[in-house]
């Protein structure tokens, strides 16, 4: 009982937009589709909704074949990035548009209008036209317009991208709550990795129309399957390295320009690898702290084994609120690590000072590297 896409391909003007996309999303779960602009994320949603016909492959929900059906018969709700509210109708008319199109009875219309608008706290806005609503209010109305039809599948195309930070947070919480409450099968498109982490039971990464990785957010973010996914999920610290020693089937020593670390996620010994270190997994430590004390370590590494020494603080990049991104450098190798703003304010961390870093072996992720892969410095975003 799930939403299934089997080898779905889409070609527009002889350009392959979606390339054999397959996925299986259990009913009631949410899938976040991550990808660059032009990766085919929106087109994937439009194909599922039936707004564009895919030439190849099949789409089914709860074993019901959707592929040949027009959009109005698919039972799929769609929330657009630009809200797509009808400007000549007020909020109430917008919300009732779908029920009117389906010739619902007045009783049904008023029942669902009341239920959904109260749930989304927009019952006081029904007389207003879209131009009189804020971005957040417009997106709530757009969400209500879809939810009032009680769709089995809800597709959201970057619904928060046009909103300010505060509205984005509020609406993200609301969407997640509604999805869980009504057990809607949801596909949510975004290019924001934080949203992906928060919204998805599963995350799918799309690159040039192809699925490059699909899995739980934990797996996608901690164990990216390729350098593209690592980059896209803001791993930030990616170094070319080599597995120099293997202790057992769970631990190996990896060497890279910034130092040596024990990794619990690696290909075979001797392999050329990309060493991926997420900034939030690196800890700025005092010299007494032993790496083995960090949670998530495997086995009993010797004290200091998973520490990186000799890095100097280059600059601080405020992340808003209590977090700051610290850029470190050692012999040309740059590292990004999160720290608290308080430490910077209280001068515990100052530009130019030398620091020590520790990381759990389970957070040192090594990806196979082809010899001709180009070295990329960590980036700031």
């Amino acid at each position, binding site marked *: 009982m799930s939403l299934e896409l089997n080898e779905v391909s889409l070609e527009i003007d002889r350009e392959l937009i979606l390339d054999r996309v397959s996925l299986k999303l259990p009913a009631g779960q949410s899938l976040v589709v991550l990808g660059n602009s032009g990766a085919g994320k929106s087109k994937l949603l*439009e194909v599922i*909704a*039936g*707004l564009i016909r895919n030439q190849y492959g099949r789409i089914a929900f709860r074993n019901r074949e959707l592929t040949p059906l*027009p*959009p*109005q018969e698919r039972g*799929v*709700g*769609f929330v*657009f*990035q*630009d809200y*797509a*509210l*009808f*400007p*000549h109708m007020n909020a109430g008319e917008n919300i009732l*548009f*779908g029920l009117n*199109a*389906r010739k619902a009875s007045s009783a049904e219309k008023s029942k669902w209008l009341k239920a959904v608008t109260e749930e989304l706290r927009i019952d006081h806005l029904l007389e207003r036209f879209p131009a009189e609503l804020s971005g957040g209010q417009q997106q709530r109305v757009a969400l209500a*317009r*879809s939810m009032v*039809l009680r769709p089995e599948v809800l597709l959201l195309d970057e619904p928060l991208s046009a909103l300010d930070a505060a509205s984005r947070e509020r609406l993200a919480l609301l969407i997640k709550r509604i999805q869980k409450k009504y057990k809607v099968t949801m596909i949510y498109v975004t290019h924001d990795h934080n949203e992906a982490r928060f919204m998805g039971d599963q995350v799918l990464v799309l690159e040039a129309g192809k699925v490059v990785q699909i899995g739980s957010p934990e797996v996608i973010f901690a164990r990216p399957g390729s350098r593209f996914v690592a980059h896209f999920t803001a791993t930030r610290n990616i170094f070319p390295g080599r597995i120099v020693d293997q202790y057992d089937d769970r631990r190996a020593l990896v060497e890279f320009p910034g130092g040596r670390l024990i990794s619990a996620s690696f290909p075979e010994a001797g392999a050329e690898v990309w060493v991926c270190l997420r900034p939030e997994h690196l800890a700025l430590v005092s010299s007494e702290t032993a790496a083995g004390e960090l949670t998530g370590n495997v086995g009993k590494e010797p004290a200091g084994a998973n520490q990186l020494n000799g890095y100097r603080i280059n600059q601080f990049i405020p992340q808003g609120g209590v977090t700051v991104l610290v850029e470190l450098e050692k012999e040309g190798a740059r590292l990004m690590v999160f720290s608290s703003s308080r430490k910077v304010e209280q001068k515990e961390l100052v530009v130019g000072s030398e620091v020590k870093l520790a990381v759990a072996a389970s957070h040192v992720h090594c990806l196979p590297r082809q010899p001709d892969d180009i070295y990329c410095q960590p980036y700031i975003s």
Partner: protein
Amino acid sequence: MKIYSFSALVTALVMIAGLFFSSPFVALLKSFTIADGFSALLNRQVMMVVITSLVTALLATGLAAVVGTILGYYFTFHKNAGSRWLKTFFSLPLVLPPSAAGYMLLLAFGRYGLIGAPLYQTFSVQIMFTVSALVLAQFFVVTPLMMQAASSAFQQVPDSLVKASHSLGAGEFTTFIKVLLPLSKPVLLAGAITAFARAIGEFGATMMVAGRLKTIPIMIYVKAMGGDAGVADGLSLLLVLLSFTVLMLVNVIGERH
């Protein structure tokens, strides 16, 4: 220095163009005398011509509004390999010499024409040289105008609104009636007003199919050639005022939109 010279050149050209374009209007006003003009316009025969023109132009505009809107919709939302050719074909009357258009209508709808002959033989219906022929000729000429207005109106409706409508369960017809038409109303209205002005001023094609019937432009031609300046002046001024009003209306609608 060079900039000033260019600016002076542009100003001079604008003045020359202004003189050229205003000269026919000045000449008309100079020729027109209120007493002669009004007495000519109040003549029963002239009044009938004005009424015929208004009625045929309204009918032709009404028909063109419906057909042109449907054509505009089709060419906006059903793009395929053949639609570009087909759209060009439907736009032909825009650039075709009106006399050629009228002649071709004669060939098609005349008593011995491609469609006219079977119509006459089967139902004893004759189109040419009747009021229907005037409507037909005007309709033929103004429908592409309406089609273009509708096309541009529908293109201005954001794609996501059409997609939203479909995703909410509305079929193509409901989307057309509930979303596209209301959002395109101002541009469609401006298109219809322009089409009406073009229809009432249509001369070449109408002349070919009118027979003894007369519209305002035909009457102006006949009277001007016959030396009856009073009627020609009065009717010309009427058309100038009508055209001016139409353009003003279109501009107002455009600004509001």
